């Protein structure tokens, strides 16, 4: 039987028991799996892809017990399982469970209101744009230096004596200024 408890996934992303029944007939029947973080005092946090209800499929439940004080790590372990092993996208996770576990700092995109997330994303995009513009200006500066180096290299290839001019300019830059006065 499916577990009673609080489900890790949002209701809308869980299948109705009737929907999965067709996969559970015949010899190659699927097994519906539930993974449960069971906390002292009667709170079961359940990860499963099928809503609780009358299920025609065979079900297997894996339970790990946690002391109440470890509620945070219990939920974190379950989220890790869902997102890394079962590859469930973060937005399918029930934000109330994250809030209960005090994990909003770790998963801000799940906890925040959609409007706040959009505001942050917009701010992030703007910041990224500014940063990339800065990078572009630095890149264009580098391009200029490289271009000058290329011209000097060509000049040196054509006229070996130009190396002596360059050497004097580098050693005594003020001397160059005097040429223009």
């Amino acid at each position, binding site marked *: 039987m499916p577990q009673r408890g609080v489900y890790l996934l949002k*209701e809308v992303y869980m299948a109705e028991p009737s929907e999965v029944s067709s996969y559970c007939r015949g010899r190659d029947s699927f097994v519906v799996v539930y993974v449960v973080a069971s906390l002292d005092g*009667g709170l079961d946090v359940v990860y499963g892809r099928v809503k609780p209800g009358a299920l025609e499929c065979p079900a297997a439940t894996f339970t790990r017990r946690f002391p109440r004080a470890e509620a945070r790590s219990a939920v974190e372990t379950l989220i890790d399982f869902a997102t890394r092993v079962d590859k469930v996208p973060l937005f399918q996770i029930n934000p*109330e*469970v994250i809030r209960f*576990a005090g994990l909003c700092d770790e998963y801000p995109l799940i906890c925040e209101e959609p*409007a706040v997330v959009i505001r942050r994303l917009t701010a992030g995009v703007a910041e990224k744009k500014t940063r990339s513009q800065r990078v572009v200006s630095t890149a264009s500066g580098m391009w200029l230096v490289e271009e000058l180096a290329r011209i000097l290299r060509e000049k040196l290839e054509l006229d070996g004596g130009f190396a002596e001019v360059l050497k004097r300019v580098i050693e005594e830059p003020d001397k160059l200024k005097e040429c223009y006065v």
Partner: protein
Amino acid sequence: MKPRVDPCIFLHGDVEDWVALLGDDFIRELVRRFRHVAVDMDHVARYILENPGVASIGLRGLEVGGPCRREWRLFVESGYVDPGARARWLYTPNDERLDVRLQVSPCFLLASLTRDVGSVWRNRAASLFSWVSAVPRHKPLEVFREAFPLWLRELGWSRGYSWVAWTRWRDRRNRHLAEWLYWLDTGRLPHIDAIRRRANVVYETAGCTKKSAAGGLYVSS
């Protein structure tokens, strides 16, 4: 554990009332169940007030008795809270109609946001969605204080909550709306204030009422 109040206490911003109405056993259990996010009762209260949806999750499996045990059982086992109004207001006859469809108590913020609960919000509190895009699950009091239109808040201030409660939306009274205005102004729920401050005086209260009829009295402070 036999609390003298219904689960709405978790939206009532007065920790002394929590202690007085929930009782020491309940408070100890609450701190134990939330100690992964809070160190003492004040922290727990603040955490739940800011995140009302966590209360029912933290209390899963708890046996609760007392006068409101049915509401508690529903809350603890399924995260559901009745959307009905709790407070009883002094009869203030008036023929005013307010074009505000808000027939859900603020206590309903404690209910887990399932699809069914979402439809109750949409159907019975349609006006709310002109002011907020979704039911806020974090710091709802702050969100609604900013979101509610000023003219509505001013009605509560100038005419009184009882007057608002006896105005109409279609054929219904606006008792839920009066609860909202009281909650937004004080951070407390009127029926719990009634239990705490006025229960033994002249006012009756609807402590864990499912049908709060108009017989009782409550005067806005």
